[in-house]
């Protein structure tokens, strides 16, 4: 069980949260301008690193807000959680 530090609520059990996958992926502003390969890259391709991973979590059983986290995918240790808009760490 992970202990996750929500930027607004503080530390809560993992069961309070929903996982949102890799962070930092921006939806293209003009999808029609993309080639199939570029669209596939946005839609499906993931970095899936072995080590530090920037990812999204939602405090779905709490404040229901999204936030970012840097978590190591081997040790599962969470180095930092942060607000998405301001980037402010807690």
């Amino acid at each position, binding site marked *: 069980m*992970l202990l996750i530090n929500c930027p607004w609520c503080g530390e809560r059990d993992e069961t309070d949260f929903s996982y949102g996958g890799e962070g930092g992926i921006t939806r293209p502003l003009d999808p029609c301008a993309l080639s199939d390969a570029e669209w*596939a890259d946005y*839609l499906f391709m993931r970095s899936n690193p072995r080590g530090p991973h920037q990812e999204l979590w939602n405090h779905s059983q709490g404040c229901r807000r999204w936030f970012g986290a840097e978590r190591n995918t081997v040790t*599962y240790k969470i180095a930092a959680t942060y607000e998405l808009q301001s980037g402010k760490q807690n």
Partner: protein
Amino acid sequence: MKKYSAFSLLRNAISYNRNWQRAWRCPEPRRKYNVVIVGGGGHGLATAYYLAKEHGVRNIAVLEKGWIGGGNTGRNTTIVRSNYLWTEASLLYEKSLKLWEGLSQDLNYNVMFSQRGVYNLGHSLQDMRDIERRVGANRLNGIDAEVVTPEQIKKAIPLINTSANARYPILGASLQRRGGVARHDAIAWGFARAADAYGVDIIQQCEVTGLNRDSGRITGLETTRGSIQTNKVGVVVAGNASVLASMAELRLPIESHPLQALVSEPLKPVLDSVVMSNAVHGYISQSDKGDLVIGAGIDAYTGYGQRGSFHTIEHALQAIIELFPSFSRVRMLRMWGGTVDICPDACPIISKTPIDGLYFNFGWGTGGFKATPGSGWVFAHTIAQDRPHELNAPFNLERFTTGALVDEHGAAAVAH
């Protein structure tokens, strides 16, 4: 290779079992191979075996960073079935099931394949509609499947709770009688021994650290035991697909998640078939040793740690207790985790790549064990002929660009 038989058992018993031959050699890596397979799990060893046997390829190496069969081959719940919904997937898994049926004889190694029947339970009207549809699709593809009633289920599995008052009542099931379980270690060891007999070098404790390329084609690999020259590399790594692909600067539509399983203390025989439930989400069988083998879904987050969170295990056991209330007193003995590479359509990638001589076979998600022989068989064809077999042609890397996905998420008789 000395043949295993009743006679060899007798002969070795007389000599106090001191003269058994090693099942496979432990060679030093050579500097040059015709084909190098990266990953010494069941799929990798099967690929090497079929490359040698079906395609006459010689001078093959299998590189394994740990020990053979120590990854997902040794970490699954050993269920074998082929009742997938979509034609592309069901034909691939059916090829594998057909190979399983003759595998012990073919390898001269008892893989303990036991066709004890696989039940996929339905708990709602929509579940039953999906089951009817899938059974129909299977039969059209020549795969044995039938719909069974709660009375038939209760008769075959007396311990199961078919009460209409259950929280999730059992309304019926699909049954594939040819499905069952096999012995996980035996499949790795059997393929290793049979491949070794064809001269395949199985090199353990040898991690690949780089893929060497020259103007768009593979020229060799860097490993922790030196450089190896080769023109063909087959990458068959579960739980490290993205890591290997990044060595060739390729991006994959794969995310790696922990998948956990657990076994109970050994019991007397209580369950002689495999029971899976999509809705309450658990699956269970009893091993020959007597322990209940239990699995469920993946952990939500990505991870390479070969372990997951406890609440995922708790959820699986809740499902099992829902189906078998009497198992609530059973004590659990061990739990473990593997790393499963999940594709967006829950189907594998068995494909050529943009780099000549580099072939991928991974992304089997939560269901790779059943496919072990079939996966090796089609991948050997793909490597030897430099083009996919018609069975694995739909499972190419380009499908994520063209959109021709084989969407087995939720369709494949179990929620992934």
